[in-house]
């Protein structure tokens, strides 16, 4: 046991690495594939608004704007969200709660 934990031979390292990666290798490859696809796309895209970032600097707090938006333009999603909350609450409670009636 001791022997195994402290062996830093190349073979040992490789074996450990192999054991670590073997079940994960597909996940890693696919995640990297996805990442690279996204990143390539990102790089080859000309993003339009880079210069305009400072515009928002004069009003660092957006809370008011956000609040306004929530209750004016975007009130519908907000309302729907309330139903979402209600139903997920209901669902979560139903699923999680033990069966009292049994």
């Amino acid at each position, binding site marked *: 046991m001791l022997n195994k934990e402290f062996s830093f031979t190349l073979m040992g390292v490789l074996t450990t690495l192999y054991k670590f990666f073997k079940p994960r290798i597909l*996940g890693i490859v696919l995640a990297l594939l996805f990442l690279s696809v*996204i990143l390539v796309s990102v790089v080859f895209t000309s*993003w339009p608004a*880079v210069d305009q970032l400072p515009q928002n600097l004069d009003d660092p707090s957006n809370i008011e*704007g*956000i609040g306004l938006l929530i209750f004016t333009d975007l009130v519908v999603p907000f309302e729907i969200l309330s139903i*979402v909350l209600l139903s997920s*609450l209901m669902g979560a409670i139903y*699923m999680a709660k033990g069966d009292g009636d049994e």
Partner: protein
Amino acid sequence: MIPIELYIGLSAIIFSIGLYGLMTQRNGIRILMSVELMLNAANINLVAFSSYNADLTGQVFALYSIALAACEAAIGFAILMAIFKMKGTINLDSINILRW
């Protein structure tokens, strides 16, 4: 000034980490965490774009999506709890009676 590509890159990396977690993890909780990671990667995007587009909609969206993520987590945990109660484990490997 930070170019927006970096924000997007960050979110993409976080998203990919979430994907990786989803593909490799066997524990239900970790899976949930991975999902949260992905949702939040999207939120980073939204906020960054909101800022770069000088449009607050994105930030509102991010807020909503955080709420949704919470709901999702709640349901997810509840389902996992139910499973745990029945099987005593939340190891996803043991949950495959439905197949083929």
